[in-house]
């Protein structure tokens, strides 16, 4: 259940902060792939949580 709480926190926190992702489009200083890097990090985190859940259910 703790894993679910982390997920809920991530999703709702991400939901509120996600408009920041759009800033990079018109900012020449920012790397164009920045939103994708953040997104990739989120996927890695989900993968880690999923592995943790599997261990928890054993």
């Amino acid at each position, binding site marked *: *259940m703790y*894993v*679910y709480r982390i*997920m*809920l926190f*991530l*999703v709702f926190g*991400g*939901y*509120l902060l*996600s*408009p920041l*992702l*759009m800033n*990079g*489009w*018109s900012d*020449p200083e920012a*790397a*164009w*792939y920045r*939103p*994708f890097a953040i*997104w*990739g990090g*989120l*996927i890695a985190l*989900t*993968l880690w949580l*999923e592995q943790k*859940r599997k261990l*928890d*259910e054993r």
Partner: protein
Amino acid sequence: MNVEMHVEIVGVLLLGLGYLALLFGCGFAVERGWVPVRITRHPIVYTLALGVYASAWAIYGSVEMAAHAGFGFLAYYLGAAGAFLLAPVLLVPIQRITRTYQLTSLADLFAFRFRSRWAGTLVTIVSLLAVLPLLGIQVQTLGEAINIITASQAGGSVALLFCAVIAAFAVIFGARHSQSHGRHDTLLSAIAFESIVKLLAMLGLGVVALWMVFDGPGDLQLWLEGPGALLQQQTPKLDPAQWRTLLLLFFAAAFMMPHLFHISFSESLSRHTLLQASWALPLFLLLMALPVPLIWWAAQSVNPDIPIAAYAAYLMTEHWWVGALAFIGGLAAASGTMIMIALALSGMVLNHIVLVARPPEARSDLYGWLLWLRRGLVVAVIISGWVFYQWVGRHHGLIGLGLAAFVGMAQCLPGMLALLYWPGANRKGMIIGLIAGVGVWLWGLWLPLMFSLPVPTLPFTPLTDTGAPVWYNVTLLSLAVNILLLIVISLFTRISEGEQSAAEACSVDAVIRSKRFPLEAATASDFSTHLAHALGDEAASREVNRALQALNLTPQERRPYALRRLRDRIQANLSGLMGPSVARDIVDRYLPYRHDDTPETDDIHFVESRLEAYRSRLTGLARELDGLRRHHRQTLAYLPVGLCVLGDDDELLMWNQALSQLSGISGESVIGSRRDSLPAPWPGLLGGVLETTSTPLYKQAVTLHGKDYFLTLHKAILSGSDSRGGSVILIEDHTEMKWLEDELVHAARLASIGQLAAGVAHEIGNPITGISSLAQNLRYDTNDPALLETADQIQQLTQRVTKIVNSLVGFAHGGRQSVPLPASPVALASISEDALHLIHLARSGEDVTLTNETPDDVVVRGDAQRLTQVMVNLLSNARDACGKGGEVHMTAGRHEQLAWWRITDNGQGIDPRVREHLFEPFTTTKPAGEGTGLGLSLAYQIINEHQGKIDVASPPPGQPRGTAITLWLPLYQQDDQPTHAQDSDC
């Protein structure tokens, strides 16, 4: 039309039809088993099939969105990623419900939860209206892409041809069976193949953009900082509130769009696979999204004034194969989406509109009728997409069409969240909220789109930013009205009992208290007869057999519990076939419960079996509680006393192992039965203890599997505020105790008779002494030889009577351990003779020959009376062990300082099982009432007091049968002093 253009159309036709032929080839390869099952059933195939979310919007619409909102296009991908990130709390509960109740669509789920066929019909209509623009987008992108490639207006006709081929694929591989539930490996594999194709196409276009149009990432960055910077700054930035609203719309679409709901929940996939998709699908979407800005920038770098941004991929280079790559990617995305939408919508329309309007009658070809209806609907849905494109779509951009679809589908989101997390929501609130929300959507967005009406001014729009787009205002207003009405009406109106139970079944933290009612059908085979009225003989018997096989039951099954499960299974199977509303109507009408005076009780066995099934999913405190439940259950199951639990309706809830052993009836075969259907004598026995007010019922005589038993039954009524009712009955086997009690009574009676005999003997002694004295006097008073002879005989006879009387008195007084053991000399011959006298007094065993060969000179130290008692017991046993014509020998001898004294018979011998306990009290092989089981125990004790021992040989050496018992006693010595017997514990 010139020749060159005609050739180009042919080229596009060949390309498109070639790809679709490849898709057919993929379908056939999977169906024929040419592709290994380990590949077709791999979780990655499922994730790729879920990639159907990335429709033609992902190929074209996202580029258009990037052109108009910059990174705002990511909302389409991140909304879906968020939904799958929440899989454990959102998707898994939905999967649990749909699988348990065989629900195949969103409309099924709503109809089931809100117990209303209108809810299902309403959701179907909303889905139909909402999906139509999305379906139109798929066809439109095909047609427009063909127009661009061929620089012609032939796109519409070619798209119709492609639609026909796609419809044929959907019918052949997706609508082959009437049942829409269950895993379709072929279809999933084909959709997964399409996902791979569109992913490769997008990645290929990204590579072209980055390394062919630009000169690598560095060159792109230079362009973005240089000439591209101005163009990007001109791109409108999406307002954060609008971005969040878009995220919400795409979040809802990711699991509620009919085609996505179908793949996520209707295909029989494991929970593990769904959870794996929680990270794998976002990864797929990331890879799909990555090339989108690259394509747009590449096209912008080539031509800053692109007329239709959606088709930028066709314009970024002059290479024909880049256009072909984009076209194949678009075709793969569009065809996959069209196939899945058609299959999902056809099922919904069939179950919630067609079958509700025209319920199936008993017909012999029910399955065929359903199948053809479904196929017709599949084709109709795909063609309606083409009609929409021709009629409406071609006049609108992809963003407007797509958002109209997603805002419509989001109207079901409040109902869906209430379904999962708010058991208090009711059908009135949901339906009125949904109608109001859909009304706002239709009025503000859908109708103006369809009929090119002017956009109406919505109320409350001054509350939002000026200049906010229509879709944004419509979304906020429609969802606000929808949610508000759902909450307010649910709070102020009653929820029906049936809806309450369905709400609990759907709720994430449901506490489901399934109730038990008896069914009118008495056996499983009755089900076929009853159902035949609705489905026809063939379909009814097929459905019942399918359910019986799934539950591993036989047609003869009579247990109420099993029949209730059978009913549930049939309803779930019919629900998969024709929707939950029709299935429930059929089952309620033809397999009704009997609502008589039987008390309503919780179905504990069902709850337990479900807990067992879900055990691996329990975590934390719930898992600990389940562990505790299992521990308590095991305690009862392994209790060494028989235990059964009966509900208030006389249904058997528990039958533990000890009772199974005692009764010879396994718990599995009787749990769930009613008490009166148990084998004899249990109905009467358990009924007796339930009816009586005075428990326990002691030592009830019953015959179980041919043997007599005495059972004691205790009863406790389960009552109290937390109790679910019923009675618990303990059944103790008191057979052995009853037998021992009988033996004790018998022994006590024998002892009384012995004392009586001693008293009688004592009384006889006085007259005998008188007779002897008189005979003595007679001898003194006469010299008549005849009288003297007579007096001698009288005296001899009185001595004999005295001797017998003395032996009897001595035997009766024997066995009292408090009497000290005299150390007087005892001749074994004399004891043997006395014992023979006593044995002859008994009437039984007259046909057994008793011979005494005990020598006179064997003299032991001991008590003559007690040794007589030993010998009488041994002789009695030996004589009883012999049949007619049996022989018993007594003999004795010396061996060093001991005398041996042996009784040998040629009887039946001693059972080896009895021999170990031979000298224990109450050990006997004689029928009850004939032997006390105390004789040998007493003999052992007496010989032990004499410091002797007993040897048993059965059969004796050199003899085929019989028994020899040898007593070893110390020989009498002249210097022996009297000793006192010691109490023994033996």
